[in-house]
């Protein structure tokens, strides 16, 4: 008997859900379509979404975002604008489906601007939803060129991957390298990077002797590293030691395991150039694998700006969280500012408006990561880089700045140490 009852109840419940839901949807459509008659001048609390896409690197820029929100709110407060921005933080822990869910939950909670997602894979996954719901994404870390489409709702405060690879090639050339042995992670970042690298290398006349992919989910890179050494030796025997450089392309999280593996292979300790993922100044590299990094002369790039914001962020991050601000932290910090300023300029918290305002705001904003001008596609045009290298400074491995890359002239000015 209870069998039947539960059956009935369930049936009714489902039907109710169905009817209500569909009805709700039509209501939703209508209300979304007609411009909502909200306050003429913007005021009160405004939610800005933050969508991390990986648990492992969350620490890398959530801290910067916290600082950014404090600064923004402080600035608005001082200038007497009655707006307070509250971050709604979500984390999709490297799962694209989760990313879509979390994005929808953010939108459902009324976010029209969302900082993130972090990685290109996730950005590609959630972009269609953002376009559909007309919500602006400002990614601080996803550099895939596939994302630079004019007229979509995706913008970013870092330049596409080509710009980064250009610097890596420039470093190599600056060190007199014209042969590269490359290993890249088999994910969006790695694959797009290697494509860009090959293109640029061809232009600059740098030979890529060998490039092979590694599984980013692997826990031990010894085998990969032994292959790398093999190929490196071959290259050296062909072209001579001073001509051959090694480059590792991957997410910041892969630095530590890679350097762990490198420490096991003395052949890699003395390479003409050893360029790694873009984690310049990252603390965990020093903490976990400092000696390996120093031995192998691990070189990496990060954003560089002659702006007070940059310095203050750096110092405050250091004293509050005890770690260096991660490369993409600067970009995330700027993303928050650009979002806030554009909302102020648009005087309306709606995606359609904001996407038009953001590029123009970015052109007048000098941020922690430098001059953040965006083009029509919403990509940051250029970025100045700081080239750092791990060295032994009285026997403690630490990051040393060895040069600066000027995006306007596309040249490196080496610092003599």
């Amino acid at each position, binding site marked *: 008997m209870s069998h039947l009852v539960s059956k009935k109840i369930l049936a009714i419940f489902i039907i109710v859900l169905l009817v209500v839901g569909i009805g709700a949807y039509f209501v939703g459509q209508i209300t979304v379509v007609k411009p909502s008659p909200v306050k003429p001048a913007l005021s009160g609390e405004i939610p800005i979404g933050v969508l991390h896409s990986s*648990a*492992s*690197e*969350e*620490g*890398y820029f959530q801290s910067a975002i916290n600082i950014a929100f404090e600064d923004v709110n402080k600035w608005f407060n001082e200038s007497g604008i009655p707006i307070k921005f509250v971050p709604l933080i979500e984390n999709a822990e490297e799962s694209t489906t989760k990313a879509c869910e979390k994005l929808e939950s953010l939108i459902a909670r009324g976010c029209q601007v969302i900082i993130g997602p972090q990685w290109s894979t996730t950005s590609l996954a959630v972009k269609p939803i953002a376009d559909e719901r007309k919500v602006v994404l400002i990614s601080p870390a996803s550099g895939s060129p596939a994302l630079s489409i004019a007229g979509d709702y995706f913008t970013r405060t870092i330049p596409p991957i080509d710009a980064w690879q250009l610097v890596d090639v420039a470093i190599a050339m600056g060190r007199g390298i014209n042969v590269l042995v490359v290993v890249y992670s*088999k994910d969006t970042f790695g694959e797009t990077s290697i494509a860009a690298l090959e293109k640029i290398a061809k232009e600059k006349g740098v030979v890529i002797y*060998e490039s*092979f*992919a*590694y*599984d980013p*989910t*692997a*826990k*031990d*890179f*010894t*085998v*990969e*590293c*032994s*292959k790398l050494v093999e*190929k490196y030796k071959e290259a050296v025997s062909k072209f001579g030691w001073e001509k051959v450089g090694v480059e590792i392309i991957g997410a910041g*999280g892969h630095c*530590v*395991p890679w350097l*762990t*593996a490198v*420490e*096991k*292979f*003395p052949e890699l300790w003395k390479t003409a150039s050893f360029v790694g993922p873009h984690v310049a100044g990252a*603390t*965990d590299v020093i*903490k*976990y*694998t*400092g*000696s*390996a990094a120093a031995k192998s002369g691990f070189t990496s790039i990060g954003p560089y700006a002659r702006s007070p914001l940059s310095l203050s962020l750096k110092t405050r991050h250091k004293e509050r*969280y*005890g*770690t260096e601000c991660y490369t993409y932290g600067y970009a995330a910090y700027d993303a928050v500012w650009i979002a806030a300023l554009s909302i102020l300029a648009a005087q309306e918290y709606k995606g359609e408006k904001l996407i038009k305002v953001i590029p123009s705001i970015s052109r007048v904003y000098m941020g922690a990561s430098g001059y953040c001008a965006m083009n029509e596609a919403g990509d940051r045009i250029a970025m100045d880089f700081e080239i750092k290298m791990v060295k032994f400074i009285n026997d403690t491995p630490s990051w040393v700045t060895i040069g600066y890359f000027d995006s306007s002239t596309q040249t490196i000015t080496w610092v003599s140490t």
Partner: protein
Amino acid sequence: MIDPLIISAIANSLIMGLVALGFTLQYVTLRVPNLAHTTICFSSAYITLTFWLLGYNPYFGVFIGFLESSILTYLLYNFLNMLKARGLDDVSLMISTIGISMIIYGFANIYLDYLAYVFKTYTRTFTLANADFKLLGIPGVIYISLILFVFFLLFFNWLLSTKFGIQLRAIVEKPSLAEVHGVDVKRVVGIAWFIIGGIGGIAGSLWPLWFQCDPWLGPLMLTSIFAACALGGIKSILGSLFGGIFIGVSQVILLSVLSDLVGTWIISFKTLIPLIIASLVLLFLPEGIMGKIQKYRGG
């Protein structure tokens, strides 16, 4: 200076062997594959990390790791018994172990967050390879794991000859009969699980001394460990050790050989190796190599 590949292979295989041993013993005593085993074992790696962060030698972590893992395993055993008493079938028990492993995974992440907050560093993915001491250019983890491995091998030989061991074997053969003959099955198997969990914990706490470690490691290792056990013959304890060693070696050596043969692209498929071995063994050699040998001996 030995080729790091060899060292990796040795460390990997020894650790795998110790973990696989536990999986098999748990299976033969309770007839339930404990899918939470790897998660529990590798959870003791965070203890090693904690000790290192506190500034001690990471090897201190080994002892606490033993306790932590063995206690968790013992609790799990009692929980499973509680469920069994409610007349659950093996499959439901297996699923419940999945639930346990999820809980441990969640808490491990929270713990790492806490460590990161306290020590102001990144703890999500970590490796302590250069915190390890070196002897004749060979990292200490090799010596330690070798010593432990041999020790446990002898220990088990001795254990199985004691009264306890005989009781244990009786239980493995026929639990109901053993119970009739006055063997306190719960107690004996409980102790066995305690010890075996501890051994797995030691293996897990040695892992970050040579490899990279993150919270998803345990669930990830499950298939490799199962491949090892299936290969060695899920019923045979010795077999699981050898299966573990085989898988551990194959993950390193086989991969590098393959990459020489078919090209470097194969490297990004390394995770497939244990999966494929496991599927093939399950299909075409369900009783495992040891089982085959015994059958062959049996005539």
